[in-house]
């Protein structure tokens, strides 16, 4: 193998690949510090400023540029993501728990659930809109859009929990039963505490996916826009660097969420490790 030659070439290629992935985001971050309100969403940077960040929080004097219609959308998106996370994770844990036993039709059910993450948002969104119309149901972000968010994120929670239960030792539950503890209480007192890190991962998945979802929401929510819909609305009109500033802030928010998750995970891992160290001591 020509590994000595090939490896550095591929390493350089991978670096370029990462540049390809991050380049637009870097440019976006740089342009978010464009001066305002005259500076446009392109180079050159007229003057470095935090004008557009202040613009997001309504701290600037009124100008010809309308502020981003995001504050209501942000609240709605967070509420929607929270609702979705709770329902999807509960459904995911229940379904994965069911799959710990063999049952007739499990193959069909598996594909039915996984279909939810595979079918494009346009199609389910359109179908739901048609269904809601013909039944005379009003479309709302907290109704029709919410059920579709669950259709989309529940499969992810299900797959995460399936992987977690795969590594779960069932004799621990049997031990609890043999002590006279009923299955329901066993689940609360033994199973759930032990699968909790997995549940946390499933929740993180559901939250980020729902928070960012827009294809389903576009068709299935009514007049009230969620955050991604508000951003999508700016596509049609002229864009300003305020949306770049917003992109930077939401990315930081997402990464902060990821950071909290990482801290929670490493805490539980460290607790396990501390115990191991004690054993070796």
């Amino acid at each position, binding site marked *: *193998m*020509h*590994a000595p030659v*090939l*490896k550095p070439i591929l*390493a350089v*290629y*991978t670096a370029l*690949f*990462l540049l*390809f*992935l991050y*380049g*637009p*985001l870097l*440019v*976006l971050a740089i342009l978010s510090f464009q001066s305002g309100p005259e500076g446009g*969403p*392109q*180079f050159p940077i007229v003057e470095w400023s935090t004008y557009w960040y202040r613009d997001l929080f309504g701290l600037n004097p009124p100008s010809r540029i309308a502020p981003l219609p995001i504050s209501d959308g942000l609240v709605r998106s967070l509420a929607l993501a929270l609702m979705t996370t709770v329902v999807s994770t509960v*459904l995911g844990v229940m*379904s994965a728990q*069911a799959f710990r*036993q063999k*049952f007739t039709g499990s193959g069909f059910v598996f594909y*039915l*659930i996984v*279909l939810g993450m*595979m*079918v*494009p*948002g*346009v*199609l*389910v969104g*359109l*179908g739901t809109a*048609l269904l809601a119309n*013909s039944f005379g149901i009003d479309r709302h972000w907290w109704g029709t859009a919410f*059920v579709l968010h669950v*259709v989309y994120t*529940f499969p992810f929670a*299900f797959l995460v929990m399936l992987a977690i239960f795969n590594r779960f030792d069932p004799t621990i539950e049997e031990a609890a039963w043999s002590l006279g503890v009923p299955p329901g209480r066993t689940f609360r007192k033994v199973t759930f505490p032990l699968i909790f890190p997995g549940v946390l991962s499933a929740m993180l998945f559901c939250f*980020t996916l729902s928070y*960012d979802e*827009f*294809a389903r929401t*576009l*068709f299935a929510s009514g007049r009230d826009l969620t955050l*991604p819909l508000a951003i*999508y609305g700016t*596509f049609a009109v002229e864009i300003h660097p305020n*949306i*770049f500033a*917003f*992109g930077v802030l939401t*990315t930081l928010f*997402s*990464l902060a969420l*990821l950071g909290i998750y990482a801290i929670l995970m490493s805490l539980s891992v460290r607790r396990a490790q501390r115990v191991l160290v004690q054993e070796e001591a």
Partner: protein
Amino acid sequence: MTALPTTTATAAAEASSNKRSRTPYLLIAPGVIWMLLFLVLPILMMVYVSFWTQTTFKIEPILTTKSWQTFFASDTYLGALWTTVRIWLIVLAATLLVGYPTALFVGLFVRNKTTATALLVLCVIPFWTSFLIRVLAWRPMLGKEGAINIILQHLHIVSQPIDALLFTELSVVIGMTQIYCVFMVGPIAFMLGRIDPSLIEAARDLGAGFGRIFRTIIFPLSLPGVVVGAIFVSVMVLGEFATAAALSGRKVNLLGNIIVTQVGSLKWAFAAVAGVVLTVIMGVVVAALLRLVDLKREL
């Protein structure tokens, strides 16, 4: 003490095993009902509505194939169909070409597991930026006064800024390739990472060059990863409309865009027809890809 009739015993045993096997159904029922009501039913509804009668502002549940005839008689719709297939094929090829070398490096050449994981995490981090923001980020990159044109002019590769970068089919392809190529890298790197290094060593000891090793060992073993990646990319690209809306300046109309505009003008039956066509294409593509490799055996 064997007086207990065996029939009673059997009946008792059957009753208890029935009782136990009911639990999974109770647990799975809410999820299944949810999916049937809010996933399967809407899709069926879409098929049904595609045969409804469309008038200018409303639809009536009178069955007709008129919408279908209109769809296949219209240059706009057929053009969108062709554009969708074309963009899908181009993006599929592009994500594979762009992603495979990276997957090769991460999966095969980086033997340190921590480094490989770190590289994959680095690929995934951009996903924590909103999808729409990531699409929008290509505008200041590709525009006439965008980053790429500035760099090219600075390096004196071009004297005049290139117009064709933004608001063309090219910008849509570039945007989609960047957004979806990670879905190709992940599965391929995973499959490559499972290749036993001694297999490649052995082939090299037999005097095989890298090209030959790649053709006979590496690529065939990575094929399940390619198929999984292709399924991900295909399903997402075929259902796309936002990237085209943001980066093509309405020049590229995918089936997804058709659905959005038809819904916007309350032409539900036409939207449903486009939806059904899209569903059929997707079903055929996924089935064909799954036929290529027996995933159940490989994964």
